[in-house]
């Protein structure tokens, strides 16, 4: 019971304590002391009416005690003045849900501040907003706990030294800063969705954390097109997570996936968010376009033909907004379903000729597929072999090996 309250309130309590105390480490210690006090006092004296307010108040008082104790050990006048001013300024009178929401949003914007490097932004967000342990964050990024702890210490030091504000940004830069936050969330999701190397294809924990973050941001910043677009995109990808890998750990391509294993509630939520996002006036977000593509992939029954022309059209919209090699490649794959493999091969060859992605194994895998469909088997074999040279994920390597086996004797 108490543990459940801690789990539910940990994020809100920390966010508010950081605002009240103006320091991450002090706030974390204060929260810890408040939880310890609750474990001692609640079973004896009964639960407080408002557990959250109790925890914040207790944490704040513990921190003030600590600041006062520290003053005794300090001799510098400036510090003493600063510390007592800090102790005096803390007034706790808000248990309003809106204020807690604001604090969590402030915390998200601080953790995702562009003055922190990208790795630090992701690590801080997972640690401070999602409440993962340093050990769990370290495991997710395949670094030692010590390395991750140092990364977090450096990030908090930068926040303190450079005075990175604990504030929701001004309207003038808000959209730009939201893009940064969404980039962090999507980074967590993609890291989880396809771990960059190693035997396991999917890290469920990170995908779940990213979706929880997306939902939180969607609650705090309602009716924002890009926020809804990203959440929809993650839900629609995540819905197919369990069918994306076979029991043997092999990649299962979209059209071969067992639809009964798709998560229908995530799909319904994702589709509704795509619609809502598309109705927001103003520029369409790249996340929304990607979500709309994902939506077309999951819509309709098993044997219904997919709306490939519309998928091609959406990729063309996406290419105008964000012309990246990955999107060009996906566009080519969609084109192969509408205009055939010959035109798709031209697109991929033109992409390769521009020299941007020669190391990119998916490009060679797609080339191989198009060549195979055109009956140019020797060239297809060569393309798959090139792809194998740079693919690092075991399940992807097995898929390429299976393709090569198909070509045996052709």
């Amino acid at each position, binding site marked *: 019971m108490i543990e459940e309250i801690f789990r539910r309130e940990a994020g809100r309590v920390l966010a508010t304590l950081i605002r009240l105390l103006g320091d991450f480490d002090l706030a974390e210690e204060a929260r810890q002391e408040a939880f310890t006090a609750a474990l001692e006092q609640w079973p004896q004296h009964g639960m407080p009416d408002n557990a959250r307010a109790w925890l914040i108040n207790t944490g704040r008082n513990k921190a003030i005690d600590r600041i006062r104790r520290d003053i005794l050990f300090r001799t510098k*006048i400036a510090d003493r003045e600063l510390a007592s001013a800090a102790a005096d300024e803390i007034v706790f009178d808000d248990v309003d849900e809106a204020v807690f929401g604001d604090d969590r949003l402030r915390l998200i914007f601080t953790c995702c501040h562009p003055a922190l490097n990208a790795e630090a932004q992701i690590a801080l967000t997972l640690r401070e907003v999602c409440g993962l342990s340093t050990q769990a964050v370290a495991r997710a990024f395949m670094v030692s706990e010590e390395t991750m702890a140092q990364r977090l210490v450096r990030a908090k030091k930068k926040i303190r*030294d450079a005075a990175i*504000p604990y504030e929701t940004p001004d309207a003038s830069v808000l959209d730009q800063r939201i893009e940064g936050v969404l980039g962090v969330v999507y980074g967590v999701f993609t890291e989880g969705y396809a771990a960059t190397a190693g035997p396991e294809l999917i890290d469920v924990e990170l995908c779940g954390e990213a979706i929880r973050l997306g939902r939180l941001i969607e609650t705090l910043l309602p009716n924002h097109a890009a926020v809804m677009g990203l959440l929809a995109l993650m839900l629609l990808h995540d819905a197919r997570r369990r069918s994306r890998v076979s029991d043997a750990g092999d990649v299962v391509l979209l059209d071969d996936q067992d639809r009964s294993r798709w998560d229908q509630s995530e799909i319904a939520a994702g589709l509704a968010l795509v619609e809502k996002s598309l109705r927001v006036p103003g520029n369409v977000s790249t996340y929304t376009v990607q979500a709309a593509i994902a939506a077309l992939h999951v819509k309709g029954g098993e044997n219904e033909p997919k709306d490939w022309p519309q998928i091609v059209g959406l990729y063309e919209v996406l290419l105008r907004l964000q012309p990246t090699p990955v999107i060009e490649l996906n566009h080519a794959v969609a084109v192969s379903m509408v205009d055939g493999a010959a035109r798709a091969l031209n697109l991929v060859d033109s992409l390769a000729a521009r020299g941007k992605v020669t190391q990119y194994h998916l490009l060679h895998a797609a080339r191989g597929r198009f060549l195979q469909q055109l009956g140019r088997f020797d060239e297809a074999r060569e393309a798959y072999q090139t792809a194998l040279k740079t693919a690092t994920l075991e399940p992807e390597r097995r898929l390429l090996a299976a393709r090569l086996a198909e070509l045996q004797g052709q």
Partner: protein
Amino acid sequence: MNYLLLIYSNEAQFGALPESELKKMTDEYMDFTKSIVQAGQFKAGDRLKPVASASTVRVRNGKAAITDGPFAETREQLGGYYLIEAKNLDEATAIAARIPGARIGSIEVRPVWPPMT
């Protein structure tokens, strides 16, 4: 907090600007400086002489070695600075973004330690 805004730009590129462009830039700098002085955010600021006039001092094993040039060869050189007061990094970077040189070079924003007491 005080922040030092270090203005980096490519000297050769800057020197090649036509007279009219240079005049426009100078006027913009004067306007910008005036605006942060009026806002009470200006502490100090100067334009520096070209990097060719720079020397670097390193003390190793108690001996001072003085070498010609800046500490590292880079594409951009330190051309000037502003020392400003801002309430946090967001305010400081917003001011830095208003420096005309931010458009052709880059501005490094460095928090300054408060004076020792």
